[in-house]
């Protein structure tokens, strides 16, 4: 994920300082990989260096000075370009899960591959249940629901693959070693 572009997007509605950006990020992208404060400030520094944001005043609220940042025209153009670019749909099969089954079949045997597939399926099923609880909680916001939906749909797709592959693993092993 491009942290730079997410921060540009969060600044599209008006100037914000680092702390506000971190909070907005966590609210709008629940369950994203955690974003540290240090990363926010480092990214803002890079965006400023590249002319995509500019400092837009200081704010003091009982604590240390906070610098607010605003999008430049160049920053807005970069954001527009990013939003208009279609992501390549799965250009590579870059899944550790997939690679692990292939390697298990190459390096060991069918039982080992099955044991891994079964254990992975259990972990996926547990995570599916956790995320379903998150999205059906009465307090769930639409942010939570949409984020959980994304994860659920991907876990569900993986689970279907795990089920099917368990049924195919013996044939697959024969082919790999023929």
């Amino acid at each position: 994920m491009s942290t730079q572009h997410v921060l540009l997007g969060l600044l599209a509605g008006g100037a914000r300082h680092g702390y506000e950006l971190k909070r907005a990020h966590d609210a709008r992208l629940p369950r994203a990989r955690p974003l540290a404060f240090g990363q926010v400030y480092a990214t803002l520094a890079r965006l400023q260096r590249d002319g995509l944001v500019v400092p837009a005043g200081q704010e003091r609220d009982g604590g240390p000075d906070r610098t607010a940042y605003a999008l430049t025209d160049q920053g807005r153009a970069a954001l527009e370009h990013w939003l208009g670019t279609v992501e390549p749909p799965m250009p590579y099969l870059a899944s550790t899960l997939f690679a692990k089954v292939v390697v298990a079949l190459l390096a060991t045997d069918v039982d080992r591959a099955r044991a891994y597939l079964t254990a992975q399926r259990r972990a996926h099923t547990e995570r599916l249940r956790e995320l379903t609880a998150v999205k059906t909680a009465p307090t769930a916001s639409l942010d939570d629901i949409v984020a959980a939906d994304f994860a659920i749909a991907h876990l569900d797709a993986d689970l279907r693959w795990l089920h099917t592959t368990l049924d195919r693993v013996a044939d697959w092993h024969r082919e790999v070693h023929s």
Partner: protein
Amino acid sequence: MTQLAARGVVKAYGRTPALAGVTVDVAEGEIVAVTGPSGCGKSTLLHCLAGILRPDAGEVTWRGERIDTWSEGARSRLRRTEFGVLFQFGQLVAELTAAENVALPLLLAGTGRRVARTAALTWLERLGVADVADVRPGEMSGGQQQRCATARALVTEPRVLFADEPTGALDTLAGEQVLTQLVRLAREQRTTVVLVTHEPRIAAYADREVVLRDGLVDHTGLGLDLPLAGGHR
């Protein structure tokens, strides 16, 4: 505490075995998903637990009392008063409006027309479909129909709701909306739910999964999954 149980239940259709000795305990207020591949016997188990089918062997108990030996009339009364049933589709009476459909079980149980209508409207509201109260099923979306069917299954405030692939005929979003509301209301009312599904993402709504394979309980538990044995080549 066990509310509903199957003990060594066997059921065949002619020479085709469906259940080969299934034992399952369901606690009061529990939401249990019965899952497994096609033809594993999950719908047959639901029908036996709900007293719709009578097992060839084994026992079905409701609050410690055997019900599989009861007469059809007694089991039918039990289903009307204590159980609610929800199927995949095609359960609403086409000639009746949503409110009339939902009021139907109450009217059959002898409730007055006005009280039944009020209860029906309350349940349609809870399922988020109050706006179609006076609409007939043919003019509703699949999701609206299934929410009405859910309202009708819950209007008698059953102790147990049996749901057989209740979202099977719906698109993903409509299915999830039906299920989210069903689960939320069941938890509020402490209604036990026996949910038959072949989809992992639907089973994930339950507290516990009972996984069947070839007419037997393969295993049961929280988020357990299918075993290695059997069917895999």
